[in-house]
């Protein structure tokens, strides 16, 4: 066991898989010489050479389509998109080429590729978007969103080995979080949720490193007031471990979903609808609540952030609401907010806001 930062864990997993499988090909903007804007691929160019770690021009649609073609004929491309806001630029190749090839060829061809990308989260309108719902909406894609550093390596290995196109979303706060990694990383099967905190009163589903961390901190605060919150990180959205959520809601009778993406048509809506459609519905003791971006682009000014990004006090309020309890005035606001800001102040790499 070693304790490494998130970006080092991803690098270890990539290097391990590149040693094992000659077909793995890393491509993306500034991943070679620079090692990527969050240093995930640092040193890999020197170690594996230009044919396997290839710097790309600013041509996201071109090189995503190219990766899909290479995957069809036997390579295992792992694309780094510089940040998640670039998805719209290459969405045609993702939606129409990568996602549909197995289907339209009736399985004669398939596209074993990974697109990994940082979701930068809280900087500006063009560098903060989380598009997981948009991607999960597309038949043919798998969507992985690891939140715990110790899950990064195993989920990345499983994604590279998966025969289908996988979108691998790395909330940038995870790059600085420390986690334990075994000497040889083993794949973690896609479609298995992680129970981060066990609890009996409220099921709280969250994804994205910053959101899961906030969920855990709020759960700890709530515990001090006698509210037992079960925190579940689904880890992958497609495939989705619905059973884990259903089981938990059957136990607690209450569901809160937390995500950073826009609430309208967000993935939280899908979860809430699926619970309404399951045996957990009759066990519900309160309305299901989503805590998410209210539907605005992330503004630049920090003063405006609290209206755009879900905050700890919003989450706490949601928990008290489903508990039908009055939130103690003195309690969480300051403590939780301070803790969350601590996380937000630490990111390293290219954007240090």
């Amino acid at each position, binding site marked *: 066991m070693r304790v490494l930062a998130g970006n080092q864990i991803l690098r270890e997993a990539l290097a391990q898989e590149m040693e094992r499988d000659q077909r793995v090909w890393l491509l993306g903007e500034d991943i070679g010489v620079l090692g990527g804007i969050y240093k995930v691929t640092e040193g890999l160019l020197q170690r594996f050479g230009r044919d396997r770690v290839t710097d790309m021009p600013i041509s996201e649609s071109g090189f995503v389509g190219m990766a899909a073609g290479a995957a069809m004929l036997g390579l295992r491309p792992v694309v780094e998109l510089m940040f998640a806001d670039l998805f719209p630029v290459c969405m045609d190749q993702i939606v129409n080429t990568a996602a549909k090839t197995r289907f339209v*060829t009736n399985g004669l061809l398939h596209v074993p590729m990974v697109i990994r990308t940082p979701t930068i989260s809280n900087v500006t309108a063009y560098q903060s978007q989380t598009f997981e719902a948009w991607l999960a909406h597309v038949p043919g894609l798998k969507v992985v969103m690891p939140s715990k550093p110790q899950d990064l390596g195993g989920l990345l290995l499983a994604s590279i080995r998966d025969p289908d196109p996988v979108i691998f979303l790395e909330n940038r706060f995870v790059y600085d979080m420390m986690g334990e990694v075994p000497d040889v990383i083993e794949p973690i099967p896609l479609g298995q949720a992680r129970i981060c905190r066990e609890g009996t009163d409220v099921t709280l589903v969250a994804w994205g490193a910053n959101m899961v961390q906030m969920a855990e901190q709020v759960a700890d605060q709530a515990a001090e007031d006698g509210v037992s919150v079960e925190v579940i990180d689904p880890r992958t959205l497609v495939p989705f471990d619905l059973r884990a959520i259903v089981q938990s809601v059957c136990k607690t009778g209450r569901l809160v979903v937390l995500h950073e993406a826009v609430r309208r048509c967000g993935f939280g809506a899908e979860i809430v609808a699926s619970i309404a459609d399951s045996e957990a519905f009759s066990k519900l003791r309160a309305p299901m609540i989503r805590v998410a971006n209210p539907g605005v682009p992330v503004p630049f000014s920090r003063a405006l952030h609290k209206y755009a990004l879900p905050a700890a006090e919003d989450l706490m309020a949601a928990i008290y609401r489903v508990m039908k309890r009055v939130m103690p005035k003195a309690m969480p606001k300051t403590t939780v907010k301070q803790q969350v800001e601590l996380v937000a102040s630490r990111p390293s790499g290219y954007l240090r806001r």
Partner: protein
Amino acid sequence: MAKFPYGLTADDLLKMYRLILFGRRYGESVDRWYKAGRLPQLPYISMGQEAVGVGACYGLRADDWVLPSLRTNEAYWTRGVTVLEQFHGMMGNAHSITGGRETSNHAAYPDRGILVGTGLIASQIPVAVGAAIALKRKGKGDVIVCFFGDGGSNRGDFHEALNLASMLKAPVVFVCENNGYGFTAPASEVVTAKDVADRAMSYAMPGKTVDGQDVLAVYGAAQEAVKRARQGEGPTLLECKTHRYLPHCPSVEEERPPEVLHKMRQRDPLVILGDRLQREGLLSQATIQSMEQEIRQELEDSLEQAEHGPIPEPAEVFHNLYCEPTTAMGL
């Protein structure tokens, strides 16, 4: 015995002639059968431009690949796909290579080196570059030929793909089927380069314009580009000037004036090669008659067989989207 260019034999020329003739009769037939309601799939007919697909695919090796545009019907015939297979595709039958999932003009036949495009014009061009990189890694000198229209050469993906291919020295031949129109948009207005081949200059690769109505000219230029790609010297952009005799597709009305349509037919690929073969004494009326007869028979028999082909099982739709059944995705 007459000598033919590029080391081609009389037999090769006759085969090319038959492929072009086949393409022509296929085009006429599907136009008629679609309009008569016998074929449910809207066809994109390549009448007038048959020599491009035939000439560019003819000399390829079994391990090479092609990526057709929506209109490169001849790529299928030249790579050995039968019209029965394509008619099963046009009917959406279970016997279709796609199992009824996709139309015949976006059908992949990997066993014959035909890669899939999407329904999006020019999106296939980067895909071909990626395939070329995979072929290059195999190190056997295999290449891919990628087709697209004049309209496609206006898309960003065309330009990005050419830049990437040049940068990575990908063994790919880009073949532009310049039929002068994208849907109803005249290339003379919307393609600002004088020739599409001029666009190669920006990407430091050879760009060549050839007479797409002369199958031997297409063949010669394509083979030169293929050779370059095999030797690791990188991509070529080959523009074949050709004509689309029919409207964009049968559901669209012809918008071009009759004199334009008439003029196009003065340089017909079937006539150009046929005249040459007849001058050389290689193609008698009797040979043509028997080819025509065989082709008509094959087209009619295949249509009839496809009309009675089995339809897919509805539950099939839940397979081959992911490696697991679609129902395993949890939501």
